[in-house]
């Protein structure tokens, strides 16, 4: 552990030292010194950037192309089969099921988290203990998905009819006179129950960012509306919301990307059984199922990537617009 970190520090200190020694400027004639200075200016950025961009290349850039390439091969990895993996995927019920489920996740989770986050941000800004409240609602962000899955699996726990329920949801249902259910096996609804976990985790994130945005709204705009006699709700929807649209969009897309990668929750709660499969878990499944079929796994990964690309382009555009 120490060795790894020390090695990294050693590189930066060492390489910069070597650079300064090789192209030293002390005790050299002015022309040599000037030449060396220019050389240093040329080389040093790459010493600084080198390790980071090497890592980015190996871990992110190369794999994107390699995955595309692998997805054109069959299970053995030797036979080129063109787009067969993709045509197979789109005829495969399990894939279509996960794709539809993912679309549901994409529709519901970002919308619910952003909406709840916005409402909570607006509400907590109006009470004196708002910061404590925010901190508590933000807390699930720190919990791992697998930890959150255990927390919620306990809530959804089902003990059979007629036995005392130790799962909170079933106990509440029973309290109001309903019959307990095995929630995670209910077709259709079980997806919603899994989404609730992610909404629980992500609302805090949306709340923190939107709350900062709400506070950034110039007070004059709100005061003007108050003087004009607008109601609180109208001010919120017609004055405040339009001013934070960009932030809402950022929150929305950030959660969207997270949703596309959601894996741990499904793996831990149902492992895709009872029609709850999603793309990321399907991909993981194909990596190892029956000895692993990297071609099909990579094809699923490419589909996830394709879904992300619009957001990627939008991000780069935003950045170059605001960039220096």
């Amino acid at each position, binding site marked *: *552990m120490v060795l790894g970190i020390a090695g990294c520090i050693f590189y930066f200190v060492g390489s910069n030292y070597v650079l300064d020694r090789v192209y030293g400027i002390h005790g050299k004639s002015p022309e040599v010194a000037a030449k060396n200075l220019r050389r240093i200016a040329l080389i040093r950025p790459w010493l600084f950037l080198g390790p980071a961009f090497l890592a*980015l290349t190996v871990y992110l850039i190369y*794999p994107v192309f390699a995955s595309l390439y692998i997805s054109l091969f069959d299970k053995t990895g030797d036979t080129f089969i063109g787009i067969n993996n993709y045509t197979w995927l789109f005829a495969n019920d399990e894939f279509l099921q996960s794709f539809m489920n993912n679309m549901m996740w994409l529709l519901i989770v970002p919308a619910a988290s952003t909406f709840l986050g916005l409402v909570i941000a607006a509400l907590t800004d109006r009470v004196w203990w708002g910061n404590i409240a925010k901190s508590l609602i933000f807390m699930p962000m720190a919990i*791992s998905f697998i930890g959150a899955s255990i927390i919620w699996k306990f809530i959804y726990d089902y003990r059979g009819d007629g036995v005392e329920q130790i799962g909170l949801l079933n106990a509440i249902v029973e309290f109001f006179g309903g019959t307990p259910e095995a929630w995670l096996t209910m077709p259709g609804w079980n997806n919603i129950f899994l989404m609730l976990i992610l909404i629980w985790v992500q609302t805090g994130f949306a709340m923190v*960012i939107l709350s900062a945005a709400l506070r950034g709204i110039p007070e004059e705009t709100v005061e003007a509306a108050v003087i004009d006699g607008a109601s609180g709700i109208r001010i919120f929807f017609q004055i405040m919301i339009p001013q934070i649209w960009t932030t809402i969009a*950022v929150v929305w897309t950030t959660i969207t990307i997270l949703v596309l990668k959601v894996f741990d929750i499904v793996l*831990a709660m149902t492992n895709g059984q009872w029609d709850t499969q999603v793309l990321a878990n399907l991909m993981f499944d194909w990596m190892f199922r029956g000895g692993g079929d990297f071609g099909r796994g990579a094809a699923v990964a490419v589909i996830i990537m394709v879904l992300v690309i619009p957001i990627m382009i939008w991000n780069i555009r935003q950045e170059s617009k605001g960039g220096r």
Partner: protein
Amino acid sequence: MIMSKTSWGAQTLVHLSVLVLVIMWTIPTAGLFISSIRDKDQLALSGWWTSLSDSQQNLMHRTEGPDSQTLVDGKYILKGNIFGAEKANDISVFGWKSRSPEAFKAGTTADMNKGQTMAVEANGDYLLTSPTEWTGSRGKRVFYKVTVPPRFTLDNYKEVLSSEGIGQSFINSLTVTIPSTVIPILMAAFAAYALAWMEFPGRFVLVAIVVGLLVVPIQMSLIPLLQLYNSIGSFFGVSPKGYLGIWLAHTGFGLPLAIYLLRNYIAGLPKEIIESARVDGANHFTVFVKIILPLSFPALASFAIFQFLWVWNDLLIAMVFLGNGEDEIVLTGRLREMLGSRGGNWEILTASAFITIIVPLCVFFSLQRYLVRGLLAGSVK
């Protein structure tokens, strides 16, 4: 601002709804924590929200065996106490047949077959009499119902830390997390400085690449990297799964965000400081180490928290790039394994899960300020 216009009633409503929301958001975690410190028998029988009230339990006890019987006044007697030394519990009803375990009130005497009797007191004392000698190798069964006071214990934690291997996994998690947090910070800080303050061709392209890579799903990287690791592993004759591999993987995946956050921060530092240092003859390396690093502490801290939480909580990368052995499995991996093998043992699951989330929660609550700052820098433009 709008507060002045709202009535007292509306304000109460706001307070109430915030309170309800906070309760909704904290109750799941609270339930987990309370369950993890409950006695495991009680946990399996009643919901955690009842944990503060007494619970009723139906239990069975086997009396002393026939070899301890005494002969008093022509009757063979077996006596003792159901609870042994501690006579704390209250028995309300008892029975001697498994079909009717609640047939008799405590303190009464029940007639069994062939003139045998059984008397059970509320404090657990029992007395069995028989006209003939008790036979068999084991004692009689007594069924009873007791009121058990709530019991909280740390036994579940002791159990998971020792026999379930959570303690070892905790150390493994730390071994993965610390270098995976420090290395990308170092690399990213240098790269961010170069992107923000050094003049060289292609700077803007590199920034655009970093922004693009921010959203590349990890799924895209898994298969090629697994193949790469496997071939490197077989080339050098070592296992492809190991700590070095996962440190570098986390470094690679964390770098885009790290560079992005740090570059934004470092680029926002006042130009004059850097320029005056340069004029004084300091080279970029000195400027970076002496001036930039100390000044960008808040941004470094924000990213460190992100990366720490992300690596500590990661399951996917650990499952792909680390082995399942005792010396490598991390907490999240262990939890997933337990969900399969110990699915119904909530005392083990809740205690393990709580140990897993306690570290990030501590980090979260103590360094929340930096976390929020980082989030805002990362997403509000």
